[in-house]
């Protein structure tokens, strides 16, 4: 289990390691073909900022070699905003007095029909954590309903157990995304004071359960803004490094959810600039040329248009982050605000005009 590896490292020493990297270390990492954790530290360090163009051009080339001139299209579909967790940064947090809803069969099909009309064939199912009403039985049922419409189904829901993942895989589940949010174990508790999610280690070991269950793809990530993004990224890369060697038949992806200053919300503790996000995307690409890198509609149009050439391999468009949002009948609260409101067709045209083929279907 990754927990055993994780225990050997200390947040502050890793942070020191990263912040003490020099431009010589960055230069060495840029020359190497096979990068280790020390090289990754150099690439996410402040010293790498002045090498951003080098990082970007190498990242572009590696991505093109491995993924070609293509961009995978996906869309999230929120099944429920019921949640028993308190997460200080999340719209679905238990202590938010919002209308809670979980889609019925009829509502699921209504959503699916709208999503299909947009052209999608890959779907990401999302929920809060409400194990009694939106647990394994609900998910199995939902996948059975949805499977005839989509080639590829991913999930971003609460962590489940290995046996449950096996059941879902048999129903046709392809990928599971489970972000640690932060690898800062002490502060994790402050962000997740109540609910099952407050158990840091359980979440940390979930990708192992996914690997053992044989789920095709595991998505990792940290919520950027909670803690120092460089240190969090290093731990996430460590996690990835462990997983890809242990579960060698599994694919991996990393996403970059970034908390931005927004009206009505307290500013995130750590603000990451656009330049820094580009640095991070490139660092992951140089670290692992086969890693799928995903970008959501949290990011604004200008940034998305420019960053797709720098290492991103999958992108969402036209997303709604509230259950029932596509059919538009429920008016539930969104989990987070969308920055890129363009339609999937508009995004596809933008991708084509950048010299890429939008891929709608890439599974059986």
């Amino acid at each position, binding site marked *: 289990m990754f927990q055993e590896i994780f225990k050997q490292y200390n947040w502050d020493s890793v942070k020191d390691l990263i912040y003490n990297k020099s431009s010589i270390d960055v230069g060495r990492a840029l020359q190497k073909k096979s990068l280790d954790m020390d090289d990754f530290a150099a690439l996410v360090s402040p010293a790498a900022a002045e090498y951003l163009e080098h990082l970007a051009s190498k990242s572009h080339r590696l991505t*093109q*070699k*491995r*993924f*070609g*001139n*293509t961009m995978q299209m996906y869309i999230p579909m929120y099944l429920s905003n019921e949640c028993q967790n308190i997460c200080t940064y999340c719209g679905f947090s238990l202590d938010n007095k919002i209308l809670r809803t979980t889609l019925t069969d009829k509502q699921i099909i209504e959503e699916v029909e709208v999503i299909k009309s947009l*052209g999608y*064939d890959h779907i990401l199912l999302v929920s809060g954590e409400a194990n009694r009403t939106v647990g394994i039985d609900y998910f199995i049922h939902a996948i059975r309903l949805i499977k005839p419409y989509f*080639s590829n189904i991913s999930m971003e829901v609460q962590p489940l157990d290995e046996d449950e993942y096996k059941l879902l895989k048999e129903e046709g589940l392809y990928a599971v995304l489970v972000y640690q949010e932060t690898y800062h174990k002490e502060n994790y508790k402050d962000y997740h004071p109540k609910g099952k999610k407050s158990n840091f280690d359980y979440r940390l070991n979930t990708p192992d359960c996914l690997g053992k269950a044989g789920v*095709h793809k595991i998505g990792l990530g940290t919520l950027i803004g909670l803690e120092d993004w460089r240190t969090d990224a290093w731990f996430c890369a460590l996690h990835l490094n462990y997983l*890809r060697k242990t579960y*060698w*038949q*599994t*694919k991996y992806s990393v996403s970059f959810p970034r908390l931005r200053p927004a009206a009505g919300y307290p500013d995130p503790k750590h603000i990451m600039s656009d330049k820094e996000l580009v640095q991070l995307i490139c660092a992951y690409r140089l670290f692992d040329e*086969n890693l799928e890198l995903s970008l959501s509609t949290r990011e604004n149009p200008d940034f998305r248009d420019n960053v797709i050439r720098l290492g991103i391999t999958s992108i969402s468009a036209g997303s709604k982050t509230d259950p029932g949002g596509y059919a538009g009948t429920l008016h539930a609260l969104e989990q987070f605000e969308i920055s890129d409101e363009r339609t999937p067709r508009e995004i596809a045209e933008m991708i*084509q005009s950048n*010299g*890429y*083929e939008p*891929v*709608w*279907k*890439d*599974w*059986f």
Partner: protein
Amino acid sequence: MSELIIADKTFSSRLFLGTGKFASYQLMEDAILASGTEMVTVALRRVEKNHDENIVNYIRHPHIQLLPNTSGVRNAKEAVLAAQLAREALETDWLKLEIHPDPRYLLPDPIETLKAAEELVKLGFIVLPYISADPVVCKRLEEAGVAAVMPLGSPIGSNNGLQTRAMLEIIIEQINIPVVIDAGIGTPSQAAEAMEMGADAVLVNTAIAIAQNPIQMAEAFKLGVEAGRLCYESGVGERSLTAQASSPLTAFLR
């Protein structure tokens, strides 16, 4: 240049093309036509069922044999299932069998590939397996009844050329069915090298798809493959470490 025969079908081009990674379907079609290829492989997972922009529409030409592949499957069971779906969707028995459970290097699983090949041959498929450059596994696949073997030159998409050269030579020498060198061929000179060695054909994808000018690169590969094959058929002179004088010292002993 002699014709290539695989499973009773004759091909005048010895260049096979893959269809991944192109910047647009139109560009892919143009490159396919420029290459002169008559065999094009397409991943079943990319084939859309009810979509106007179906990748297959850009590949179907009277002179082109469609070769669906099972890329994405991780074991024999999944491969057989994918093969059956491919047969149904594309109405062909031809199949490029690909089982590479390792998503990093996309190296074939020889055990699962052999298992799947045995079953698919029984089910009437014309099987062309993607396989490591392992002469014994290739012989086992031949015995299983595959139509050709497709050993790799180096990992898929790596453009590293014939790093498995020594083993490829043994495969070419030993086997009685066509050998198509698949994966890793990054330049026309590497394709020519494979053909000079006696490979029956090569399959190219990444090198063409991500070239700045894929159409021109497709033509370059066409020429490289033809040059290599013509060379092979002309009889390559033996290589030697020392100079061989064209007027030998013992010439007076007539």
